[in-house]
Structures are given as C-alpha cells and as structure tokens.
C-alpha cells in the first residue's frame, strides 16, 4: 500500500519498539484523540476537530500511500472511511493503560 519501491521487511525488535512508541504516544495524545472522538460523537454541534483530523489524515495518506491501489482509494474516499478512522482512534484511546503496548500488540495480531 505504501508509495515506495523498497520492500523493507521490519524486524521483530523494531515491531515491538514501534508498538511501545505508539502506545506511549497515545498516552500523551489522549486528550486530542478524545476531542476528535467526541467531535465525531457530536458532529452537528462540534464538527471542527473531526473534519480537520479527517482532511489532514487523508492528505497524509495521499502523500505517502500508493493512490492507484484500490485499498488506498477506499481509505481516502470520504464517504466510507469514517469507520476505519474511528477504529484507529478508538484502538489508540484504549491503549493508554500501563499494559497498553501489550493490548495494542494483541489487537494488531488479531486484525
């Protein structure tokens, strides 16, 4: 899906480190993640955080991912990507506990 010709295979240690980093980042960023989720819950009264997050996320995907792929096309299609984005945010929001990295790892393995 990535817009790169290099097929860099990730090592297990790197994968573990990335998971720990993501879990620690989600702890710090929880207030913002929560604000975006809350905005989506109440889109009529407070749409700004959700629309800003969504447009920036789509922008980043378009820059870095292969937009010719059907999966990526579906991901950047505003009409059907809400569920995926909510799932990503909720996964991060539920991994802010002390054993958050373990939880995140299990969720990713189950995905």
């Amino acid at each position: 899906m990535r817009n790169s010709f290099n097929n860099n295979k990730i090592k297990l240690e790197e994968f573990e480190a990335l998971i720990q980093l993501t879990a620690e980042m989600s702890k710090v960023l929880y207030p913002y993640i929560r604000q975006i989720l809350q905005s989506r819950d109440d889109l009529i009264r407070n749409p700004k955080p959700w629309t800003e997050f969504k447009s920036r996320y789509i922008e980043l995907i378009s820059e870095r991912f292969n937009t010719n792929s059907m999966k990526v096309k579906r991901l950047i299609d505003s009409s059907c990507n809400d569920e995926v984005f909510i799932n990503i945010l909720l996964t991060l929001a539920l991994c802010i506990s002390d054993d958050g990295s373990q939880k995140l790892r299990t969720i990713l393995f189950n995905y």
Partner: protein
Amino acid sequence: MLQNKYLFNQSSVSLEIVGLPDYSNNENKDNISIISQWKLMIIDKPVIEGNLDHLRSIMKAFYFYSNSFLNDEIESYESDLIDIKSENFYTHILLLKSSKPNVKPLNITIGNSVFADIISCFDQLSSSNKVKNIYSKEYKSIKNKRNLFLSNKKSISKFLLPPLVSLISIFLVSSAFIYIYDDNDKFSFLNNKNILISIKSISKLL
C-alpha cells in the same frame, strides 16, 4: 471502622471504590481488598453503582464488548446485569438491569469518547496496587480469532471431520491395493528366484 476510598478519573468519567483491607491477610491499612461499594459517575448521566459482583460483571461486559468491537466481530454483549450494543459506529447503548425487584432497566447512550474514558478508568483500577481482588486479567485477555474458532467444539468437529474421513477412506483403499500388490510381488519374487536357480544350475552344468 473507617473505610478506604479511591477515585479513578478520566476526563468525563470517574470511578469510586470504597472498601476495607483484608486484615486477616496482614494487608496494609491503605489497601482495599473487600470492596463494599463502587460508583461509576459519567457526566450528564445517572450514577451506576452496586456491589463487587456487579462491578465484575460490568467490567467483563465492557472489556468483552470493546475487544469484539475493535475486531469487528459482534455488535452486542448480553448478560444478566448489563447489555451493551452499538447503534452505529459512534454510539453505544447500555442497558443496566437492576438485581432488585420492581426496578426498571436503565438505558444509557454513550459515545466513543465516554466509552474510552470508562475503559481507561477500569484499566486504572485493575493496574492499581491499592485495590485488589478484582481479577480483571481474564476479561482483558483478547482471544485471537483463530483461538475463538478453535475453542468452539462444534466448529472443531466441522473442521476436522472431512479430512479425517478422507484419510480413513484413502487408508482403506490403499491397504486393499497393498494386499493385492504384495501377492503379485511374492509371485514375481518366486519367479525371479526360480530363474536365478535355473541360471545357477545352467552355470554348474557348463
């Protein structure tokens, strides 16, 4: 006797635990091992409270529902005390059924942000050194989809029966062929033996 009280907060949700330490186990006086009361307070929503069994049941429901929700498996969880189902991808409906008679079930609608706050409060409680006797690990363990599939006995029999039947049938058919082949083989071996004897006798004669 003065009871201990601990509060676990996360944005719009706070969980209050009241109880006593287990003095028979020589526990620290600041700990809580015997939970007498708990309250889950969500802003703009009614207070949820009960005893230890209710807390365990609610924690189990929330963890189970969150795991299945993230894995796109089921969209509802039902138990004697609490039902959770998703109305859509950003609204969850809690139906709290009281254990007391003549008390109507309580319906609470929450969004993803409040849902995440509640899970965070439960995470704080289960990782706390002060409050013990929660046993939340069993609820928190996320079972792999494949393990869930294997844990279902019906699906195991469905999964194993066809290859097992095919293996048995292959074995039966092949064993019949081996029997026939052995007979032929013996026959051919005897023939070869006769030929060899005849060659030996010819060579002796010569």
